[in-house]
């Protein structure tokens, strides 16, 4: 067992860095970029935690993890207890430990933030989850007595998974419906292998199955069966179908062969494993020069995937400046290290191509920043006459996603707002139809894994309250 070190020592010690694959090596493979903490790293980092009586860090964690407690167990080298502490409230620790924007969440609230050295909570969480997986430590499955009530969860992204896990732990019968052939949502089809290995997602989903959640894949709610069908069979429903419809720029040439939505590009590569073509059957185009439009996490993932698939040049095209980039700083840093070239203040105006539908270039216009707009960011304005052509042979649109109306169309009484997202009661997460709840991206618009996990948890509690009061969709 490692020692608690004196507070003065703790304050002096620097944040323990995480080892990474070197950039020149990693752009030739799809293996994970950060390699994780070693046991020693984890203990050293954990020792820095001040074990606050009033832990501010916890206010930043929608997964409600008891952060100081699990960190204390790391110092004590009792990794099993650390794991069980996290698992109590977060059903996806290896996932959140990797892709949660920690610097905006728990670590932003950590009292050590002001010193520039907040505790690397996410890295510790990841270490614990990875340790438990390697050492075959599982959560307890002998949960409370089964209740005679059934809940349907639609969509198996982080919102659906966390809601399903929490409800199963409370004893409800939970059935999770997923349109694709694999559960996980964006975790399996969107976020690339080099940031979130798919075996890890599969492992954590399996752990959730073990606590009693029944997962039905290949089931498109709104097509295979409607929400109305589910109402007849289930006592409550949680809708967590994400905001999965791609947005296009609506510029000339955008339907040419080598223009992808980020959703298509990443789904082919991640879910369908096109990076292993022809061992896996799904093909993907490998351009020489790829342009990704947008600068969010999705754009970084696309540009970095293009490099790994063999593109010689991978550009990011963004209409605002570096300051406004929405992606996590770490992702931008990784992309730059790997050689992704950023074109700021640039707006594509049309895609150029030949008669066979092959892309030969993209015409862009330079932008300058004007007055702030509604979002508070300075509005980009085209500079007249600054058009130029960028020579590229593939284009990836990563300018965002929107609601897919397929479920809303099949649900009576469930209202949506003008963007197609479900209207909910902020406190209970109930939609305008009593007994039907919603959360995650289909309520917030494209957001984060951790906010989806949080929504799932709040909804689970609310569903339990609804059902405990004797109400049910079947009785309506």
């Amino acid at each position: 067992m490692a020692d608690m070190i004196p507070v003065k020592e703790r304050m002096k010690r620097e944040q323990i860095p995480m080892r990474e694959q070197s950039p020149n090596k990693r752009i030739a493979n799809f293996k994970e970029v950060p390699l994780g903490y070693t046991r020693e790293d984890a203990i050293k980092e954990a020792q820095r935690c001040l074990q606050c009586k009033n832990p501010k860090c916890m206010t930043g964690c929608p997964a409600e993890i008891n952060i100081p407690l699990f960190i204390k167990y790391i110092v004590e080298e009792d990794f099993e207890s650390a794991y069980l502490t996290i698992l109590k409230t977060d059903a996806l620790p290896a996932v959140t430990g990797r892709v949660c924007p920690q610097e905006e969440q728990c670590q932003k609230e950590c009292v050590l933030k002001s010193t520039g050295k907040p505790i690397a909570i996410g890295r510790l969480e990841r270490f614990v989850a990875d340790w438990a997986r390697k050492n075959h430590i599982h959560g307890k499955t002998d949960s409370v007595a089964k209740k005679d009530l059934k809940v349907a969860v639609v969509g198996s992204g982080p919102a659906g998974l966390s809601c399903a896990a929490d409800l199963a732990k409370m004893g409800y019968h939970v059935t999770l419906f997923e349109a694709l052939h694999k559960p996980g949502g964006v975790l399996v089809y969107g976020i690339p292998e080099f940031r979130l290995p798919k075996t890890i997602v599969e492992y954590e989903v399996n752990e959730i199955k073990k606590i009693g959640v029944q997962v039905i894949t290949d089931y498109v709610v709104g097509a295979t069966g409607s929400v109305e069908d589910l109402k007849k069979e289930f006592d409550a429903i949680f809708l967590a179908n994400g905001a999965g419809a791609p947005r296009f720029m609506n510029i000339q040439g955008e339907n040419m062969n080598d223009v992808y939505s980020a959703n298509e590009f990443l789904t082919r590569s991640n879910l369908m494993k096109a990076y292993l073509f022809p061992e896996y059957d799904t093909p993907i185009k490998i351009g020489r020069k790829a342009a990704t439009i947008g600068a969010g996490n999705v754009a970084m993932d696309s540009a970095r995937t293009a490099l790994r698939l063999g593109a010689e040049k991978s550009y990011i095209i963004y209409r605002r400046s570096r300051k406004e980039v929405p992606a996590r700083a770490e992702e931008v840093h990784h992309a730059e290290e790997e050689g992704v070239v950023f074109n700021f203040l640039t707006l594509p105006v049309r895609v150029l191509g030949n008669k066979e539908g092959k892309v030969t270039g993209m015409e862009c216009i330079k932008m300058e920043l004007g007055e702030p707009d509604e979002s508070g960011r300075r509005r980009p304005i085209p500079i007249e006459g600054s058009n130029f052509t960028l020579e590229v042979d593939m284009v990836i649109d990563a300018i965002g996603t929107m609601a897919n109306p397929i479920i809303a169309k099949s649900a009576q009484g469930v209202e949506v707002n003008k963007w197609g997202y479900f209207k909910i009661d902020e406190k209970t997460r109930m939609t305008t139809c009593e007994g039907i709840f919603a959360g995650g991206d289909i309520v917030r618009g494209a957001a984060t894994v951790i906010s989806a996990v949080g929504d799932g948890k709040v909804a689970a509690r609310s569903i339990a309250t609804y059902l405990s009061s004797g109400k049910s969709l079947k009785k309506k």
Partner: protein
Amino acid sequence: MYQIIKKETLYQDIYAMWIKAPEIARTVQPGQFIILMTREEGERIPLTVADYDREKGLIYIVFQIVGKTTDELSSFKEGDYLYSFIGPLGKKSEIDYFGTVVLVGGGTGIACIHPIARNLKKAGNKVITIIGARTKKLIIMEKELRQVSDELIITTDDGSYGRKGFVTDALKEKLDHDNNIKKVWTIGPPIMMKVTTSLTKAYSVDTIVSLNTIMVDGTGMCGSCRVSIGGETKFVCTDGPEFDGQLVDWDGFMNRIGRYKKEEKESWNHHKNQEEC
């Protein structure tokens, strides 16, 4: 897992299968399709629902070997299971009373027009069906289509069966002689649908086509299937697969279905090499 209950060889490289999928059979409508995967490493391919049996919970698919996945599917036997089978996807055909309608089918499109013809007949329409192929042996589902059509015309390119010529020749003749034709459906190879559409345009007859773009999810998530319809980008999987043929950007559509020619060939060679090992 989805079991293959019955398998038939309709002709050399055209096969049909009845698949156990009760959830899909419960709600499927004519014009809709499914997406299947043979195994976990496989590709997701769309196939039209050529028939269904709601009571037995079965879906009928008809497919032609054109590449790796269809070749592999043809090697599956009765009793085997498919890894994935998703549907029903897409919008259903607009079945209504129109008067006289003509259904034009080519290749595996012949199978796809069958449930549409049956339901149009049920809705009281006079159904004229025209099916065509290169040669006699490629004519499939003749018996089934005869049952649901008031008139069935068969054409073969080589004249080995029915009339010699193309389906469009037969259609033109019909249009010349019968000005009661209210609507035409044409499903088959892209070039056949394009030519049919330009023919009916001259007669101002509404024409529905079913587009077979390259898909991934089939639920509106990826945009792989997008095509320009009347100047607007539409997703074939959710807005279609049936569209007003006069509005389709045929050149754009034909380009996009050839998107992976090189990779498809590579996949085929890899597949054949493995079979030999």
